């Protein structure tokens, strides 16, 4: 990470700084929360801003995939008003005819990224819908993971004795489940259960995927939170609250939780790209959703030489998205870390 210009020292001194009365009067001391300080740092971080813009564009495009596809008169489906007939849109070898763009023709506005060989669906439409599904699964899984991990971590760290030991054991237990094996086992069960109803099957696949992703990845966060809470609960402000007779609930949510925000934000920002990658990976293996980036890339791999744009555009978009999210996560981590001076 490049070194940004050093900030005003005051800005770096957390809330305690406000309490210090020795600051020069010329520089007005404004009380700022850690979040405000982090945001101001982020705004000055060029990498963070660039990445945020990229992520925003992709997220907006994904959310409005349906509108964009309708506006451009393209579709990822084989039936409906904008669907093309494979018999008339592809040639003898099932490659797109020249008028539909690459690889045989040149760019066309009707199909900006061309159409798929074989079933003649539009590549842009397929990619947007795939992005939407991947992002949807990743965000829900992140939220679920955070909730579970946070709760277990808080409770386990704060309560001593058997509850802590029991929860720690559960964490260890879940850590021992092999993730891929779990996904492999769940997919056919879901398929069998909802075999006759394809609409329900699709919903069930999303839910199952979110459940698999989140139930098997909250343990890291739980351990992290537990460790932090173990430290924090011995601090004076927690002891003071206890002495004052504050309820456990108040101590957990008013005293401890705010001190964990930085950790949470960082974990959150780092786990979204991980989940996107996991979802794409699973769907590449045929275990995830049918309309996903993974399936798009999977069907495009065999065309890497004869129809490169079909493969490389989704791969590039995916790489850019995950990279941008990772860099953004890095920047957020730096911004929230009181020890970095940048």
């Amino acid at each position: 990470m490049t070194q940004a210009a050093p900030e005003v020292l005051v800005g770096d001194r957390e809330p305690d700084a406000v309490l210090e009365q020795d600051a020069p009067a010329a520089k007005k001391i404004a009380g700022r929360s850690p979040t405000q300080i982090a945001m101001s740092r982020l705004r000055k971080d060029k990498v963070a801003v660039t990445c945020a813009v990229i992520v925003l564009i992709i997220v907006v495009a994904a959310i409005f995939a349906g509108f964009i596809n309708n506006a451009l008169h393209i579709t990822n489906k084989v039936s409906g008003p904008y669907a093309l007939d494979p018999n008339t849109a592809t040639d003898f070898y099932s490659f797109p005819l020249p008028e539909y763009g690459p690889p045989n023709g040149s760019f066309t506005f009707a199909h900006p990224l061309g159409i798929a060989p074989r079933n003649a669906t539009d590549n842009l439409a397929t990619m947007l819908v795939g992005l939407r599904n991947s992002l949807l699964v990743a965000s829900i899984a992140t939220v679920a993971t955070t909730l579970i991990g946070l709760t277990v971590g808080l409770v386990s760290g704060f309560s001593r004795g058997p509850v802590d030991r029991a929860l720690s054991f559960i964490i260890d237990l879940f850590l021992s489940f092999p993730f891929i094996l779990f996904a492999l086992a769940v997919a056919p069960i879901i398929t069998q259960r909802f075999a006759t109803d394809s609409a329900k099957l699709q919903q069930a696949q999303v839910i199952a995927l979110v459940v698999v992703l989140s139930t098997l990845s909250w343990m890291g966060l739980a351990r992290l939170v537990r460790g932090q809470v173990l430290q924090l609960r011995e601090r004076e402000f927690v002891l003071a609250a206890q002495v004052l007779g504050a309820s456990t609930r108040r101590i957990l949510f008013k005293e401890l939780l705010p001190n964990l925000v930085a950790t949470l934000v960082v974990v959150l920002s780092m786990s979204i790209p991980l989940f996107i990658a996991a979802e794409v990976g699973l769907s590449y293996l045929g275990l995830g959703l049918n309309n996903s980036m993974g399936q798009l890339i999977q069907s495009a791999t065999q065309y890497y030489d004869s129809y490169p744009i079909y493969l490389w555009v989704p791969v590039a978009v995916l790489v850019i998205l995950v990279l941008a999210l990772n860099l953004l996560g890095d920047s957020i981590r730096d911004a929230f870390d009181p020890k970095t001076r940048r």
Partner: protein
Amino acid sequence: MRLNKPLVGLTVASLLALAACGGSSDSNSSDEPTVNVSELAGGGQDATATGPLTIDGAKKGGTVHVIGTSADMTTTLDPRGIYYSDMISIAGSFLVRSLTQWKYDEKTKNMVLVPDLATDLGTSNDDFTEWTFKLKPGIKYEDGKTISSKDIAYSVSSSLDCNTFTDCPSNYLLGTLTGSGDVKKDGDIASGIETPDDETIIFKFDKPFPDMSYYSFFPLFSPIPPAVGKDIANYPSKLVSTGPYKIAEFTPAKSLKLVRNDQWDPATDPARAALPDEWDFDTSYSDPKKVDAIVLASKGEGATTMSYDDIDSSDIPTFRSQAGDRIATGSTPLTRWLAPDNTKVPLEVRQALTYAYPYDAAAKTAGLIKDINYIPTTTLMAPGVPGREVVNGLPDHSAAQTDPAKAKQILEDAGKLGFEVSWLYSTDDPLSVKTMEVVKAAYEKAGFTAKPFATTTTDAAEKRASVDTPINIRVGGWFSDWPSGYSWIPPVFAPPEAGKPCAEQKWETFGVVNFAHFCEDDVNAEIDRVKGLPIDEQPAAWTALEKMIQEKYYPIIPTSNGGTIQGHGTALEGVNIDITGGLPTFKTIWVNQ
């Protein structure tokens, strides 16, 4: 016979929705490397063929490399258990001599059945219940010992144990060959097999078995020394060769190296030219495109390299433009059909389905290429079957014709608009899902209510075979074991319990591949009658029977035949397709050094 690879077999089965049906081939321009079905009529026999087999201008020597993906050569090499087409071809071409054998005929581009170990194609009594084969004298194993008809009797009897040889190539003998149930342990000889001397073998059947000449090309009709063969687990690697080559190195599913067997006498062999000195099989490639790239580049060792995998459809245009003369195409004895459950789907709906099904679009989506590996048809029996004629149970409909308006009309007239159709697809196979979408759209356009039934690739074959699966259309596919109506009509149209009237059939299974749930007593009687006809009357009788079934009952909707497209290096000559199995004509390939 099974397709050459279990994986491909499954795919074809599960994607049956994608298996399009076929029709006219005049829609594509003539410069495409298509399979010309009309060349493939026939499939003759030549009982008088003698060795040695010579090829004009062919040179001896060299090493041929055969490469493929990890889906190849995965099944057993034990002659008693071989039932996948690639192993049948490898064993039969190089290592194992059977009673009869297929020989490639350059002029007709067809395969001709010739005697191999036997002096002729076998002689039978009048009702085909007793077949006698006389062996050529002096044929030796690779260790120099002379073969005996008793070794063939041992091999055939041993193969009857389908718990050991699970692919069960001997299925035609079970319940047909006299005493096929008596074989309790390895080494027992079925009472229906007699060997009066070392050069004679007699097979006795409880029911007429007219196709014994064809069936006896299977590797299970080859001699195995009982002393070596009793070690069933290790026999594939210890295989005692009778063919022109012997095994130098063998790692199942990975590699096979063959060197000359000096005990093989070309003068006794009318089918094998065996010109190269060595054959080197390597099926450890994971990426089919890598295989294509090596064959296409044809550099160094690549010049003598070939593959029996289909060229990946994305590579076919490149192959065609850069190496058009190094492509071998041919049909395979595979027919795909739609099998509506006849007990649930009435005749008018079956006719409507015929117009509604998106033959070409589904085939394209599934990655099949018209007139290469998707050859539209309306006939069940595949090209190459003697006496085969085009049969069309719905004369107004031409092969691969999709007409949703007409389908809707038929449904409306029958008062069946909105008829619910349900078929299998695999959620973990992207091709299957995409094909399902195409088929679903087409059915809905034609006025059906489409309810695809989700399953997984692993379960697809089992779900299709189960009578209890709540679907009413199955995609059938059958790869015939030999070109005869006997290998087509009974498996597809006969009920599971032979000999029982239709009313008493329990339908716990679909029999062999009678996915249409079809049973008519007059058809069953006719099947039994044709089985007993004189051999030269059978081809016409089977065709007439198919015609009768399709025109009177229209139980199935044939969609397409299979085909194959394979590439080879610049130095290889004589690479053609053996249409009995869809593999290269290994027996007559030579290296042009």
